[in-house]
């Protein structure tokens, strides 16, 4: 399991207006084709509409043509699903639960319905925040490990962030 801060190379502002998407999770394309067309891995098929039907705040990039999915037909990959997400606003525990639900659904898709907390997932999250002074800050996080470990790891991240905020308030 690995949770590291990284330099975001793909931010949600490419795909949605962060000021209107606040509180939403944006499932971003996993890569781009040679012609620049955004591509999702095939375990992302139908995920957004299924989560939205459950009332979860998940949106995708707005594209005019049917989404193209990338399939790679080799067996038993170490990483069952690679997911790229954007979060407009700060991480909260509710947001983390949505991320976990999304990741588990993509694992189920990849394994044809067989969900497993042990299946390895690569999760990249860009968090974008607009401060009261209008400044935009972007942070990127990567997680590689079992899908069952996402909640604990991101929860620790939120707790750590809260402690930093409390400490800074105390200093002020």
């Amino acid at each position, binding site marked *: 399991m690995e949770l590291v801060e990284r330099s975001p190379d793909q931010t949600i502002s490419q795909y949605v207006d962060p000021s209107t998407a606040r509180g939403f999770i944006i499932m971003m394309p996993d890569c781009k084709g040679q012609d620049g067309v955004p591509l999702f891995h095939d375990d992302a098929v*139908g995920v957004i509409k299924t989560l939205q039907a459950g009332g979860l705040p998940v949106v995708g990039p707005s594209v005019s043509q*049917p*989404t193209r*999915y990338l399939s790679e*037909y080799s067996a038993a990959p170490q990483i069952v699903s690679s997911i790229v997400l954007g979060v407009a606003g700060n991480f909260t525990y509710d947001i983390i639960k949505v991320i976990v639900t999304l990741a588990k659904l993509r694992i189920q898709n*990849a394994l044809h319905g067989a969900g497993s907390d042990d299946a390895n997932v690569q999760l990249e999250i860009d968090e974008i925040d607009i401060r009261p002074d209008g400044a935009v800050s972007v942070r990127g996080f990567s997680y590689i490990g079992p899908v069952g470990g996402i909640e604990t790891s991101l929860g620790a991240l939120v707790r750590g962030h809260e402690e930093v905020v409390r400490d800074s308030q105390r200093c002020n």
Partner: protein
Amino acid sequence: MIRRGATEFSGLVVRTGVPLPPPAGPDRQILLRKDGLAAMMHAQRQFGSALLAIGINGPSVLNTAPAAYAQDSPPKLFRPPNTQPLKQRWKWARQRLVEVTENQLIDHAELLHAKNQLDLALTSAVAAYNLLEDEPEGFHVHRLAHAIGEVRSGLFHCPVAVKDGVAVQNCPLALLHFRMGFSIGFTATRWCSICHEDLDYCVHLLGKTYSLVAQRIENSCNICGQRSCGHVVGDSYDVHPTGIIRQVDLHEVSLVHRPRDPLARVQEFRQHVDAAQTATCDCWQPCTGFWDLGGDR
């Protein structure tokens, strides 16, 4: 047998019109095991039918397991292969077959039936091995394939040949020992298997069950995607929506040790040779092991 130095090969990169197993997980194992055991039973039946037709009670060779399985088998099965007596035995068997055919003890039609059954049995056994490679039955089905191959090649010779200066190796038993298959990478759109609309925007949700009336669409069942199945047209079945692949754009084809489709394999090696050269296949001999692009395994 053509091995390293092969200049060209061709094969099946992916099956279409059938549901493919997932890349990993318990569902993959269940599906591969189910299909593999069915193929193994086919092979056993076809082999039995061939043996009955030509009056042979069973194969003569048991020491065919490769070294990789040595630890799982009785030591007596792993004597160094001594092919000369075996060659003599099959020479005698071929002569005997000619005699009984000339004396009309075996009908020509029966002999042809036996040969066809052996070809089918070998193809089924090779498919079964590709599906059961990681299962305990893989050991048994590998030996079964060798037993079938030995009888087929021993009695009728392996149909490997040189034609127009090209040696073509398409013996299923020889190809079984090349343990690599095809993996493809492509992009495509996905359409709902229930309503045939864009799966990202239709009303059918993943994981939900819907009632669907069975019908044949483009020669495939709309319930299971198989060309041949037990679903009755007009009856209703509970189904989950799945994605139908359309507008495929192929990106790459790779050789991998574990292809997502276990039957996506090399079907033919071709090598340019001197016109006078003859091609031989050693599929009647005891197994000498598996190989891949890195060499022997």
